[in-house]
């Protein structure tokens, strides 16, 4: 099987190199057969990459411990599901998986563009081929997952296999963690398609809306997957790590947040280019930066650079990755510079008080937030390099810097839709802002009167009410106008309105989801926790809850031993239920993990952790009351649904497409007739 995997990797190197050369040569020589053969070579790479990936999965499923990767990330008793998930548990396997996704998406692009974007496609294929070449090179020479274990004997090195593997990291043995990496990677890798089209547009000089329209859905899907991946990671941390939080500003989390921030900025600014032909340089730069940040994130989390600059200096992997990023950035910048005259705006700004201005300030805040996260993540490396002593940048710094920026973005989420394109008159400003502002101010005043003194949380709730007011007003105004023109019921008008302009109203649904996430995050300002060492019968009182410790229980599965603390929970004297937070001790890796238990409502989560047993045989239990956490997960679902709405072709687009097709057909019939007459 490993021979097949290695052969597939070698073949990808050949075919990808051919795809790059044949595409560029085909364009140069104006030879369509060459460019088409390049596309077929890329399709072959897709098949070969699938073969390589399946070869590694087969080795994992067979528990073939002759291979270092299999022995390091799986063991015999690992359930089937997690054996498959071991594919992305380590550096070598996850890079193989990354390359497979890249080639899978490349294959889809080739297959769906056989009759369109013909001028762009050779450059798209060349770009995708070059990136595939790099990743496959890394997989074949630098971090090959098919490497065998060996021992030195008198007769030289001999193959060797341990009795059992070291097993998958216990923290990764969780259903969310099994799906979180593929979802996150789909987001990361998905941005390669807009990037390739952007490079093709720059190379050909076709810098109009064509490449943007062709990649709109790719961008949205990649953005949605990256966001979902981030939130799933947060959910996993919340239910698995046992510290009561879902976001720790860890470099791995930050690495994925960076491209999400720039791509969100792009999703807003691209609307200005589509409507007014402005911000062309800005948009190509954002697409390029987003992709480079995706690759940089991969570099950041695998190179060891954050833990120490010395680890980075000793790593071949890191150096090669950095060279690739530098080359990609240099080539992209050169292309942008070369096309600067063609990237000039086609329009002027009518007024500072316009949606265009709001979008530009929204972009500014997204990019500053991106800079802040990057700066904070890289600052330890910088301080070590300059000062010789490493300073740590932890959650307090990230919160202090990013919370004001986040609130600014939340405010703009409400302001932007209330401003008209081109110019807002004073009258329209008054009309549009009145109700949302009343809602926001009223919320703030009521909460302050009720005794809320946490400034950021208070501002966040007031702004959330303002944004919800904006969204409700936009839907209501649209539905009212629709009913005046077409009649029908109010819910019918709302649905019709959304289907006519899915992008706009789907966008509002996404905004609503973001507001829910903000509300959930603001709830963390009111967290409470207690930790106590208990004997059976004792209890902890926390914010109206009484948590009584009933006793310990223990058991064993094939994969791990477990111990649980049985807790009876009552609230204001009423029984809620019995919960059993656990500790698992994984046999293969000899590592413990926590399995928290929660009583979750929309008001708050009661979060219970069995923290261990003390030397004097008392059971340590940690209880958190975390208000509004559920709103974060609900918000994530709403964002995802909103994105799906934006992906649905609008009625208007469908009608236009049908009309264009009808005109095409009639022209075809007409020209056929002319030809027959002639």
């Amino acid at each position, binding site marked *: 099987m490993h021979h097949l995997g290695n052969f597939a990797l070698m073949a990808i190197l050949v075919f990808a190199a051919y795809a790059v050369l044949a595409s560029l040569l085909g364009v140069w020589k104006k030879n369509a057969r060459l460019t088409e053969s390049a596309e077929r070579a890329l399709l072959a790479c897709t098949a070969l990459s699938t073969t390589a990936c399946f070869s590694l999965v087969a080795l994992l499923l067979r528990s073939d411990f002759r291979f270092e990767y299999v022995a390091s990330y799986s063991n015999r008793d690992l359930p089937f599901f997690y054996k498959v998930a071991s594919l992305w548990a380590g550096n070598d396997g996850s890079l193989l998986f990354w390359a497979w996704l890249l080639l899978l998406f490349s294959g889809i692009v080739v297959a769906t563009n056989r009759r369109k974007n013909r001028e762009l496609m050779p450059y798209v294929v060349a770009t995708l081929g070059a990136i595939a070449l790099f990743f496959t090179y890394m997989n074949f020479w630098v971090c090959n997952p098919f490497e065998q274990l060996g021992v030195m004997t008198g007769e030289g090195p001999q193959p060797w296999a341990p009795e059992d593997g070291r097993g998958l990291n216990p923290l990764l043995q969780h259903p969310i963690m099994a799906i979180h990496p593929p979802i996150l990677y789909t987001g990361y890798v998905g941005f390669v398609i807009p990037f390739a089209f952007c490079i093709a547009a720059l190379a050909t000089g076709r810098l109009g809306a064509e490449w943007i329209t062709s990649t709109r859905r790719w961008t949205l899907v990649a953005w949605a997957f990256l966001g979902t991946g981030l939130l799933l990671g947060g959910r996993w941390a919340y239910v698995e*790590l046992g*510290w009561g*939080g879902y976001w*720790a500003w*860890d*470099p791995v989390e930050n690495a994925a947040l960076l491209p999400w921030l720039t791509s969100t900025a792009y999703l807003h600014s691209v609307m200005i280019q589509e409507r007014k032909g*402005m911000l062309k340089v800005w948009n190509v730069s954002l697409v390029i930066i987003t992709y480079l940040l995706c690759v940089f994130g991969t570099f950041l989390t695998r190179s060891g650079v954050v833990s120490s600059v010395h680890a980075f200096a000793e790593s071949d992997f890191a150096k090669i990755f950095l060279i690739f990023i530098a080359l990609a950035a240099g080539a992209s910048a050169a292309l942008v510079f070369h096309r600067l005259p063609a990237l000039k*705006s086609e*329009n*002027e*700004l*009518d007024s*500072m008080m316009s949606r265009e*201005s709001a979008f*530009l*300030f929204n972009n*500014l*805040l997204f*990019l*500053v937030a991106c*800079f*802040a996260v990057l*700066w904070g993540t890289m*600052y330890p490396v910088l*301080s070590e390099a*300059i*000062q010789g*002593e*490493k*300073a*740590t*940048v*932890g*959650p*307090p*710094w990230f919160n202090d*810097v990013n919370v004001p*920026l986040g609130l600014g973005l939340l405010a703009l989420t409400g302001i932007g839709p209330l401003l008209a394109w081109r110019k807002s008159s004073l009258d329209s400003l008054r009309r549009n802002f009145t109700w949302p502002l009343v809602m926001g101010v009223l919320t703030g005043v009521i909460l302050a009167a009720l005794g809320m003194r946490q400034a950021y949380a208070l501002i966040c709730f007031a702004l959330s009410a303002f944004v919800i007011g904006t969204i409700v007003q936009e839907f209501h105004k649209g539905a009212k106008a629709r009913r005046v023109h077409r009649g029908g019921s109010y819910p019918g008008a709302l649905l019709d309105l959304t289907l006519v302009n899915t992008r706009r109203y789907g966008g509002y649904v996404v905004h609503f989801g973001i507001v829910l996430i903000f509300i959930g995050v603001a709830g963390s300002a009111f967290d409470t*926790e*207690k*930790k*106590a*060492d*208990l*004997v*059976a*019968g*004792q*209890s*902890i009182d926390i914010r109206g809850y009484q948590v009584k*410790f009933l006793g310990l229980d223990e058991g064993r599965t094939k994969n791990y031993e477990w111990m649980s603390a049985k807790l009876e929970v009552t609230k204001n004297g009423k029984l809620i239920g019995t919960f059993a937070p656990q*500790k698992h001790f994984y046999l293969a890796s000899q590592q*413990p993990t*926590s399995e928290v238990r929660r009583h979750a409502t929309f008001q708050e989560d009661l979060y219970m952790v069995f*923290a*261990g047993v003390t030397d004097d045989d*008392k059971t340590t239990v940690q209880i958190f009351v975390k208000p509004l956490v559920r709103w974060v997960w609900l918000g994530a679902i709403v964002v995802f649904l909103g994105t799906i709405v934006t992906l649905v072709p609008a009625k*208007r687009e469908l*009608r236009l497409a049908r*009309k264009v097709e009808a005109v095409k057909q009639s022209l075809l019939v007409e020209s056929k007739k002319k030809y027959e007459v002639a």
Partner: protein
Amino acid sequence: MKWPKGDFRDFVLALSFLLSAPTLIAQERLNTPEYRNTCAALMCQCGGCSATIYTCAMEHCHSAEPIREEIAERIQKGESAESIVKAFEERYGLAILSAPPTSGFHLTAWIAPFAVLLVGFFFTRHVLRSWKQRTIPQDPTPITPITEAQRTRIEKELRDISS
């Protein structure tokens, strides 16, 4: 009634303690805002979790557990949060602080994002103003007015598309 003496008294005390144990109030660990803030100001030094002393959830963590105990002890003795943090910084170096200091070179860590925001704000305002002042040269081709029939047709098609 005489209070029992010696071994017998100890036995009675121990028995009454054991019998009443389940009803005793749980032995809660220190959790004052001062304790929480001090723990959050320091990073766990175990080398693997990148969590603060407050959030490190590893059981019997060789770094977080003793630091937590020491913080609780010092706070109970009346020591201030600043002096506790300072003491740990002297012992472990800068790496134990969960945020860079707000003095010297490390001030740049705090200033840089807001400096970028300020520069970005003025740059964006400049760009917007320059766009507003700019006039795009109009197409010199004279505009031919459309006929009434063409106008009706365009309006009908626009209606068809938007309905």
